[in-house]
């Protein structure tokens, strides 16, 4: 189908042409108020065509996969290209290359999971959330999907692959004596057997109950231990700062700092497109460039930005296999699976070494960070107060403002425990001397 679309586009006068086709089938069940809310099944397929007439680039797509619609998409892409000005940065399409060899992409159990399976697991998750009578509400979902993608271009590139995914998420609310608190848990993998809605429900319920009894704290400078989810939230700012597009447009404070110490020596951050069973693993990226493992920060030294082909060429670098898109849009840079190398200390030591501090499960508001400057102001989600090396009590409210580069420079310990978040493999980290406003 992709080769056919490329052929059509070339016939219509395109100098270069590329087609990407994706297909997915998803079943999922939603939970609300500790009950099943809805069950849904979706089938989605489509094809996107990108063409270049010289340096004029056009894009079109269709979710209607008849030969006639595919020909029309090719026509439309050519028409769009003609309407656009020359793009001096256009790097041309990538040539063929051997796709990466990846493990654990496809699981027949996830591919064949039915609505009934998802509903049964969701019921188990609901029961597991009710760890005791204080759990009053709960929401979340369980879902399975099968995906396939194919890509072909006029330079002879032709690739395809299929994979699966499974996910479970639970958000529990507990109430006691006028206080209410929440707990959250999430698991995702390409393999059905890696996720356990039972485990997810129980963890969310337990966290909600443990977070009851919130007390206020005073504004102070203290040490903050980040849960892997909180680290993942902060890394969403870091990967924006590492985007090749922001590098080219000088919209990141990391511009010009390649080879320099930009973070604590404790931190090594890897973008891994080939991590076994992870949900952003695929043999190739959305332009057909082989997936790879890219060290971004090694012991605090900036090693690489992330690029698709366009912004890579613009910056004089190669694509790092970070082009991302569905069939209906042009490629954009996005991280693959993020891995922070584990440290040597157990989490218990990260906490016991803190005189005054906070353990934070997640952050809210990281999407409002100012990317060009790196400044951010976020709300700590489910924070717990640490005093004299011990977890004391949940905290009512706490905000952290600062600069992302200062923040990652102040990391002084990384746990040996790591949590698999489906698209990230992350430890707990401790950040010294953070201004916390309560």
């Amino acid at each position, binding site marked *: 189908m992709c080769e056919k679309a490329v052929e059509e586009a070339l016939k219509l006068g395109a100098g270069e042409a590329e087609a990407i086709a994706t297909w997915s089938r998803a079943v999922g069940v939603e939970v609300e108020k500790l009950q099943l809310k*809805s069950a849904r*099944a*979706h089938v989605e397929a489509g094809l996107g065509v990108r063409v270049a007439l010289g340096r004029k680039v056009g894009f079109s797509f269709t979710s*209607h996969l008849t030969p006639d619609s595919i020909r029309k998409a090719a026509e439309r892409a050519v028409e769009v290209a003609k309407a656009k000005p020359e793009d001096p940065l256009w790097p041309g399409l990538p040539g063929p290359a051997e796709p990466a060899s990846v493990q654990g992409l496809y699981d027949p159990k996830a591919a064949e999971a039915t609505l009934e399976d998802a509903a049964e697991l969701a019921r188990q998750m609901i029961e597991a959330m009710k760890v005791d009578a204080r759990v009053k509400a709960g929401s979340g979902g369980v879902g399975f999907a099968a995906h396939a993608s194919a890509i072909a271009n006029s330079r002879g590139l032709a690739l395809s692959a299929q994979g699966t995914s499974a996910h479970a998420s639970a958000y529990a609310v507990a109430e006691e004596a006028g206080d209410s608190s929440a707990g959250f848990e999430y698991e995702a993998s390409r393999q059905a057997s890696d996720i356990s809605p039972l485990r997810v429900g129980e963890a969310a319920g337990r966290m909600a109950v443990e977070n009851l009894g919130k007390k206020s704290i005073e504004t102070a400078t203290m040490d903050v231990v980040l849960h892997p989810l909180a680290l993942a939230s902060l890394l969403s700012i870091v990967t924006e700062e590492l985007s090749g597009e922001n590098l080219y447009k000088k919209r990141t404070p990391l511009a010009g700092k390649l080879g320099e110490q930009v973070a604590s020596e404790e931190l090594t951050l890897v973008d891994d497109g080939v991590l076994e069973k992870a949900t952003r693993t695929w043999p190739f990226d959305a332009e057909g460039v082989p997936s790879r493992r890219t060290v971004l920060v090694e012991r605090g030294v900036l090693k690489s930005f992330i690029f698709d082909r366009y912004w890579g060429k613009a910056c004089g670098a190669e694509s790092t296999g970070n082009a991302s898109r569905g069939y209906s849009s042009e490629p954009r840079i996005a991280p693959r699976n993020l891995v922070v190398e584990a440290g040597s200390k157990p989490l218990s030591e990260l906490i016991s070494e803190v005189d005054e501090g906070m353990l934070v499960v997640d952050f809210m508001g990281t999407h409002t960070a100012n990317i060009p400057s790196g400044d951010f102001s976020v709300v700590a989600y489910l924070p717990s107060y640490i005093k004299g090396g011990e977890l004391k009590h949940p905290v009512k409210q706490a905000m952290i403002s600062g600069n992302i580069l200062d923040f990652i420079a102040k990391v002084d310990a990384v746990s040996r425990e790591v949590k698999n978040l489906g698209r990230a493999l992350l430890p707990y980290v401790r950040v010294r001397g953070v201004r916390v406003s309560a």
Partner: protein
Amino acid sequence: MEDLAQLAVEEALRLGASYADIRIELYQRCRIEVSKGRIERLSCGSDAGAGVRALVRGRWGFSSTTDLTREGVKKAAEEAVRSALAMGEPKEPVELAEAKPVKARVVKLGAKRLEDTPLEEKLKITLDSDKAMTSYSPKVKSTTVLYEEAYGRKVFASSEGTLVETVGSRCYLSHTAVARENGRIQSYRTRAAAYGGLEKLLEQKPAEKARKAAERACMLLEAEAPPSGKMTVIADPEHIGVFVHEAVGHACEADAVVAGESCLAGKIGEKIGSDIVTIVDDSTLDWWGSEEYDDEGVKTARRVLIEEGALKSYMLNRESAFKLKMGPNGSARAMSFRHPPIVRMSNTYIQPGDYRFEELLEDVSYGVYVKGSRGGQVDPAVGYFQFNAQEAWLIEKGELKKLLTDVSLSGLILETLKHIDAVGRDMELSVGFCGKAGQMVPVGDGGPHVRIREAVVGGRR
């Protein structure tokens, strides 16, 4: 398309559904994004598929597909029935209020049809708006213009014999200007949009709107921080539109009422606002948020929500109408075939009264005039709201004195409705999108200038 629709509905009934419907959509979509003279993104394509809903023994099931073959839609019908059955026995079975089956065809393409207008012309409109901002002042450091359009066909068919075909088009343009000077940064957004042809978008003079965004962003660089506390507020049509939509409209959505998530539940007939407050949601207007039939095939209507201060009605779909023993009024909308319809607004506004703007102002010894909106938040269960204005002016002794920035307005919906003491004679509607349960749909909102006594004004957090 009608054959496919019939096939899916029959398949769902055969598999045990008591009611089933399908929406098949075939749309062409274009999206242009321009920033500081550069076309950052441009894509045009075809978006097509079907969504099937099945009611099986009192439970809803839903399934969507982009596979518009006979096998594809049959499979979708089967999955819709299976998803209903997977839910287990319902605590409270769903029943539908009666709706008269209809056969209708609606065409809403306007005079200057999107399909017949070359892409170059749409690019020029987008680039002209961008130029109007960048050329306004060197203080304008960044600009974004977004143009989006969709045109095509939608067929709705139900097992009760309703068949509605809509051939329509929509286009939308938004302009954002960011101005910077001496370390201060301000932004301003203006929008234009039309349900129908391109001529309706052009009537709204997009380049002038774009220039206004640049002008206001630059002006706001000189603005001062607002006072805070309880005071008299005059809201412009755009700001009052957001109040009416967010604070009153959402609380009048019958699905929230039935779920016990609305502060207006059980208050039909009760006096909840001052006598001069009449609030309407009107899908029969020739405006952005309108539709002729909703996504359950029910004819849409002009719904008077609040009449002279008394709560009159809600926005209802068939399910909530049955529960509340009211008649459905065509308020079920879905973002696309990928989503099931839920209760939504169309164009929501407060009806004009008889005050001129100067008359609203002259009685105010100290207060704030708020204009436009930068969003905010509402808790419809508690009835609390907080909105940020795009621009505001300090009022002293009946005169507009100085420009303020980062002003927010907050309060309780029910108190605020009673504190409206004067309603202007002007009227303006804005355009936007409303998000609910992950679905964005086009809506309009507005009204005249409105005066509110004892409103809580604060700085934006």
